[in-house]
């Protein structure tokens, strides 16, 4: 039986990527709790891999802010930080408002109808790819904006999962009607104002 050459770089890379995604999911959905210790050795045992991909996955999580290395060189899942969460929401607001202003102004008829049919009945769902904000970001179309948005959404989702009382409200009723009207008119600034008004109380006093 041929022995798989796990030292081939492409193979190792896939391993490290898969591991990173699994750990990220576990942190975002709260399976790994804030403050929990995650060592490359324990991850290697848990995932049945060597320490090299485990270490790399941890490095990536640290660069993304999901784990922190303590002064004594142990690695822990990043603690929940209320102030940082509000900053993340405010940063998401900056992107959502900017993308709305642009997207609504330049959208084609097809793009406009995609925004009009996007989901907004659930606060967390607004941030999903088919949610109102996710759709506006997709219509905006810039990959760097999208990547930054996705990074921040993961942090926010983790907070909402672990602290359900902080879950954001939906965007419905009069606000959604006014938003849809603005989209139909192609009025970017008016649509952006509605998104701004939704984010401002959420992100706290500035």
């Amino acid at each position, binding site marked *: 039986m041929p022995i798989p050459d796990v030292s081939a*770089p*492409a193979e190792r*890379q*896939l391993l*490290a*990527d898969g591991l990173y995604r699994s750990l990220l999911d576990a942190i975002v959905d709260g399976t790994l709790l804030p403050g929990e210790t995650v060592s490359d050795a324990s991850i290697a045992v848990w995932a049945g891999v060597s*320490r*090299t991909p485990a*270490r*790399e996955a941890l*490095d*990536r999580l640290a*660069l993304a802010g999901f784990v922190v290395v303590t002064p004594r*060189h142990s690695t822990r899942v990043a603690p929940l930080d209320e102030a*940082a969460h509000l*900053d*993340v929401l*405010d*940063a998401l*607001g*900056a*992107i959502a*408002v*900017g*993308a709305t202003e*642009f997207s609504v102004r*330049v959208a*084609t008829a*097809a*793009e406009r109808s*995609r925004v009009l049919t996007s989901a907004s009945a659930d606060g967390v769902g607004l941030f999903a790819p088919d949610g109102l904000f996710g759709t506006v970001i*997709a*219509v*905006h*179309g*810039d*990959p*760097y*904006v999208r990547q*930054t948005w996705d990074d*921040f959404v993961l942090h926010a989702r983790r907070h909402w999962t672990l602290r359900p009382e902080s879950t954001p409200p939906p965007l419905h009723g009069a606000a959604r009607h006014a938003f849809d009207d603005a989209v139909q008119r192609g009025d970017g600034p008016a649509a952006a104002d509605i998104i701004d008004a939704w984010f401002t109380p959420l992100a706290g006093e*500035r």
Partner: protein
Amino acid sequence: MPLPSDPGTARSSDSFRRHAFERLYEAIYDGTFTAGEAVSEEELARWLEVSRQPLRYALLRLEQYGLVELLPGRQPRILGVDERRLNQLFVLRGMFLNRTLPRVVPKLSDVDLATLDRHMDEIRAGAAAGAWAWMTEALFELFAVLVDADGNRVISERLRRTQYELTDFLRPSDRARFDPGVFIAQVQTLVDAARSREPTSMRAAIRAITDDTFERYRTQHRSTSV
């Protein structure tokens, strides 16, 4: 080849990571690599004389700065900074600055305003002397005064990340890309708006700068998404 994987050598492993990151970062800018080039990790590790771990770390950091593309199962690709990338950086900066700068204006102290003036003088002096690094540094310090006064640490960290690449934009070899006179006038309108202490003036000043960026995105770089 050094093998810094032993947990007991954390310090020296940090220094290999730093070496790999800095050397690779320089190589992207000094033309050792060309934009779009794919390079094998083995080759890079040999060239940098580091093992795989510090190399991976360096590549991951460069990916964060948008200088390298890492896709599963493929060789790392050097992206470099081209017009499209610069526009992306300015688009994101525009979104963050539009949000933070107008609301920070009423919070600025007299000391902050004096600091803005000082950085403005430095920018002018740097441009006049053709000292681009000096000018760039003063420019980023000027923005830092405004963004730090706002206090959103997540946004200020993201803006700082974009500066690595924008520094390159302002290098002498790229002088043809922009007119320092226009650029200085734009920054001066921000400082004037800060002095007015009126959010609406700041909003207008920021818009005057970002409208151009967003329009360039729409006409030159946006690919239809739906």
